[in-house]
């Protein structure tokens, strides 16, 4: 007895089919960390707006020490280790980064530099009676004093991402992982992605 042929449930062709295939790929393991972090941070962002709307800095004249500093330390270190483990799920790539990746990285570094410059200026010019402007670390401590769990949660997310990025993985091992990933999925060629491999981008030596 032979089975009847399966109906073809694929909708559309071309771009629509590719979009559906990409949407299915979101279930892959290496999406777990960024998608989970983005969902949780979106909720936290809304909650922070509601909680701290209209909260003056003068409410932080006395900062309460954290009730569970050792637990916070363990949580942040554990998140860093977890980030190092989940970073192995990410497929490596031998492609050269594009202009948008460089632009995003430059923007990120610029934001950090501006924030750090403000921090230095604010520490060098302290304001009196706990009014604005204060150093950013003071505001962070103020938020932590009011909502210790939330602040810990943000630091755990940051430690997760830092562990994912900075955990030491030799380049060769990551490239092997990327090659294995591509051999199981769609072929990734420079023609298909528009991204030149490193050696191709560097040109003949």
């Amino acid at each position: 007895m032979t089975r009847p042929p399966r109906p073809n449930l694929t909708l559309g062709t071309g771009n629509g089919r590719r979009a559906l295939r990409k949407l299915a790929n979101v279930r892959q393991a290496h999406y777990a960390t960024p998608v989970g972090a983005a969902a949780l941070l979106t909720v936290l962002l809304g909650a922070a707006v509601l909680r701290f709307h209209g909260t003056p800095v003068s409410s932080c004249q006395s900062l309460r020490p954290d009730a569970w500093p050792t637990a916070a330390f363990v949580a942040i270190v554990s998140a860093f280790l977890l980030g190092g483990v989940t970073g192995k799920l990410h497929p490596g790539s031998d492609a050269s980064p594009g202009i948008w990746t460089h632009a995003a990285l430059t923007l990120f570094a610029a934001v950090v530099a501006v924030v750090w410059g403000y921090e230095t200026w604010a520490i060098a010019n302290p304001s009196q009676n706990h009014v604005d402007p204060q150093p950013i670390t003071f505001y962070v401590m103020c938020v932590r004093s009011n909502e210790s769990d939330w602040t810990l949660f943000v630091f755990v997310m940051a430690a997760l991402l830092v562990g994912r990025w900075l955990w030491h993985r030799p380049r060769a091992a990551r490239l092997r992982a990327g090659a294995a990933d591509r051999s199981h999925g769609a072929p990734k060629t420079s023609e298909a992605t528009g991204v030149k491999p490193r050696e191709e981008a560097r040109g003949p030596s």
Partner: protein
Amino acid sequence: MSGVLIVAVAGPMLLLAVAAAEIVGAWRRNVALGAVIEDWASDHPFLAALLAAFVGAFAAHIFWHS
């Protein structure tokens, strides 16, 4: 808008932007922001360790402050 609200929102927003950049990079099967940093960390493991230690020291500064 007070500085407390700005900092309470800016921290998660910065991390959300980083997570979004990671998702877009993986979605496009392109070289993501994280991959560039991973390359740098692979080439400079001691500097990466120092950076990670700095982030840890900052967290400790916040949570151990009294």
